[in-house]
């Protein structure tokens, strides 16, 4: 199940209640009723929590283009 963070809504203070549970702004939850996720996201009461390994993946992907760009730019400068 995806994990979501309770944002607090428009004023940042709104808690979330579901299945006899309560979550406060900042809490991370993963058992929100499936049918509620769409409107809670649309109205800004929850946001998805990115997985921990996502930043590492971004960094790894980002390294190659940077290196490639550097190697591409060097010959151009030499030409000029």
């Amino acid at each position, binding site marked *: 199940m995806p994990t979501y963070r309770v944002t607090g809504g428009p004023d940042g*203070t*709104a*808690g*979330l*209640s*579901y299945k006899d549970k309560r979550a406060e702004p900042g809490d991370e939850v993963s058992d929100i*009723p499936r049918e*509620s996720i769409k409107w809670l996201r649309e*109205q800004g009461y929850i946001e998805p929590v990115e997985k921990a390994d996502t930043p590492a993946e971004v960094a790894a992907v980002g390294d190659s283009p940077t290196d490639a760009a550097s190697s591409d730019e060097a010959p151009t400068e030499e030409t000029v």
Partner: protein
Amino acid sequence: MAFKHGKNTKVHINASDLSSYFNSASASTSVAVAETTTYGVAGSAKTYVAGHNDATVSLGGLFDGDAGAVDEVISNVLGSSNDINFTIIESGARLSTILAPSSAQVGQRCIIGQAISTKYSVDSPVGGVVSVAVDLQVDGGTDHGVILLYDQSALTASQTSTDNAAATSNGGIAMLHVFTNTYGGTMTYRVQHSVDNSSWVDLVTFTAVGSSTTTSQRVVVAAGANVNRYLRGSVTASGSGGYQGTLLSFARRF
């Protein structure tokens, strides 16, 4: 449609339930109009545009001079610089007793507002019962809403929801009266709203009500704010023993 008898009308003013002292309650709203008739207007009828609305409340009943009874409550707020909070439940199902909360009252219509007490009279006829009459000048207009909690006990519970059939987008008014309190702890009352009647988010969170405190609170949800289709009252409690007698309502604005 079902017509209602007035015998179960309830009147709450600030932190008091004064229903047992009154036997008449009248809330009236009028709208000022300005004439716009000009020469040569088509037809022969005058024309108007709507202006401001104005509301008053008149209450009548029987005198009681005990502590916390009608005379003490009303005389203390007469001419006060602070508005009083009021809720009138015009009619409806028979009301449950404290500690026996029922969902029967949830969704009943009510009138809520804040007002200045402009008149309090006590009439003592030689051949009859001493009576009282109260006039209120409503400050900011009345709002017609629905009950979300009534006579909620010390339960940590959410009541039955009410379905407006559609969301609204112009905010509203939330009103809380805690008129009895023997609870040994703190209770926090909320108005929650939902799109699907399954998950709920806070729309209004009232200031927590501590042990032995009676109070009334009015919270404005700003114009333009979204109010989802379903509404309910919610209570979270920290403590034990006793109960809080509570009336919580919300009026959408359109």
